[in-house]
């Protein structure tokens, strides 16, 4: 049981590290933009992607929301704070990334790749890991959420 818990916490933290660094990297490189990613968008979201690209103000907003979304989700996962919300938000964001560029037949991305994917890629796997973390009451045992639960219990006692 302890091993299971420990491995789950480790999983939460490494995903948190990954997502947080993605956000920080974008923050310290202001020249970064989702433009290239959106430009390559395929399948059902390619129309939305084109619409975002065609509107510079909207693209800037999407960039800022993406950067800060990643940072907040990453912090939540590393620290174990609002873990459930952070995991669910992370799941939703990663699923979006997946759907904007799914590794379906005929939708291969040009350029060098670090792996070969068919239907399933690492983004989808990471998204599902976050969904698993969200539905497992893990955070009550490791993370700042413990203070939240403790406080709620004390508050309930005094009621």
């Amino acid at each position: 049981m302890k091993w299971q818990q420990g491995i789950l916490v480790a999983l939460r933290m490494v995903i948190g590290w990954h997502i947080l660094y993605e956000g920080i990297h974008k923050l310290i490189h202001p020249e970064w933009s989702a433009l290239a990613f959106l430009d390559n968008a395929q399948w059902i979201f390619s129309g939305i992607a084109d619409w975002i690209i065609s509107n510079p103000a909207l693209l800037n907003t999407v960039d800022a929301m993406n950067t800060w979304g990643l940072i907040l989700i990453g912090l939540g996962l590393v620290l174990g704070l609002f873990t459930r919300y952070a995991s669910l938000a992370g799941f939703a964001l990663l699923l979006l990334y997946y759907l904007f560029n799914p590794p379906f037949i005929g939708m291969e991305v040009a350029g060098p790749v670090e792996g070969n994917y068919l239907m399933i890629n690492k983004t989808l796997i990471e998204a599902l890991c976050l969904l698993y973390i969200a539905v497992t009451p893990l955070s009550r045992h490791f993370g700042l959420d413990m203070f939240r639960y403790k406080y709620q219990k004390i508050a309930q006692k005094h009621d």
Partner: protein
Amino acid sequence: MTKEKASGIARRDMLKALAGVPILGALGIQVLRKTSYDDKHNIQKEIVRELGLEDLMNAIKPVNHQEGELIRLGIAGFGVRGGQLAKALGFMEKTDFDYTVGNGSLDAQIRDGNLHVAITGICDVFDLHAEKGLATAAHDIHTGGTFASKHPVKRYRHYHEMISDPDIDAVIISTPDHHHAQMTIDAIQAGKHVYCEKSLIHREEEIYAAYEVVKNSELVFQQGHQYPQTAAFQVAQEILKRKWLGKISHVETTTNRNSPNGAWIRHLDENGNPKPGDARSIDWKQWLGKAPEVPFSIRRYYSWARYFDYDTILFGQLFSHEYDAVNQLLNMGIPETVFSSGGQYTYKEFGDMPDMLHTTFEYPHKELTLTYSANLTSSKTRGRTIYGQDAAMTVGGTLSVVPDGSSELFSDLLERGLIDPGSPMLEMLQGSSSASVVDAVSSATAQYYATRGLTSTSIGGQDWDVTHLHLKEWLDCIRHGGTPSANIEKAFDEGVVIAMADISYREKCRTRWDPDKRRIQRI
């Protein structure tokens, strides 16, 4: 978290609760280490430092807005180019305007600003074109047409009527090339400023006559070459000033296209039917002017650039832009000798234009050779490149500088591996929105003009139609004095160079420039 609230948690649980904090700290340290590593190993930053690139882009001058009194323009020749010039001035026919607004591509023209001009005269020998010109002139996109209504637009049957009208201040000449010089001479003599599309000349004698007339007047003359208006041109000028290319011995200019339209075969519409126009709606005698008399021909009317009778073929069309670009950059002037060769191997149906053409311009006094290589049967792009012993620079709508492996100037950077002879050490790209406009147009000929820097440029974060900027320069000089970039001196050099190349091709001989007599000789 206050001490009181935390007090309910055991020490062991406290450690569990704060387990993420050291991880966060570790991430923070790694981010700092990575940032510092990236800074030290950022080749781009190091090249910027080593080459002093920080202020290179300051070479791009902002587009300034100069107020001034209204200038009333007359346009002679309202074909495709006439329409483009009117658009660059801020005038579009209502249907074109609505269509452009509909597909969202109008922004650039609207933003280009009001040049404070009115098109008050249209002269075209073809009724259809003249009517299009009148409708265009009456619809000023900056003012919704109200401006134009105060200045009625008049159609002139003959350009002499237009240039002698006191209600016209300046004229734009966008007729076929064989009329350019005579119209320029007549307009200047009638006291009008002139913007004349390239090429100013068709035959050698016209250069000397037009030069004398323009030079001896106070009026402003500008030839229709837009390239010096681009941001890439201004940066290229600065790079040459900094002598990064070293000794320059070869300038290579090229044309590559691969379509009947790109070869000026333009008398048929997209369904293969002849375009409108016949002997009744076109004043054929006036269109021919001094050219040999031939019966009306729809082929000659639309595809005139293919005929020796009306044009200096590829030299007057695309080489003139190439020459102007490199002459504006290097001030190379007139070569000592020129030799052209080529032939019609693919488009043999009509006209004289070769689809394979190679010309060498020798400048022994400058230890320099200019070459022009045109291929109308392959669209594989070749650049406009200036080769120096230290680096080669390709300039067009974009710019790139590739160091030479044997460069002494860059030997240190090459040895340290910071730059590589196989790839550009400096690249300037066209603004992304301009590129997407070009994609939307999607015509191979439009793409050609964009790669040569002849359509739009990005200055101060805005996309500018370069023809608009070129017209603006002419208008600014009319109002406030000064000499425009494509002035009569530059037009003279260009006219001589084109005539030398054209004579060499047509008469199958070498040509030589006699600087004392200022005339071309056949050798």
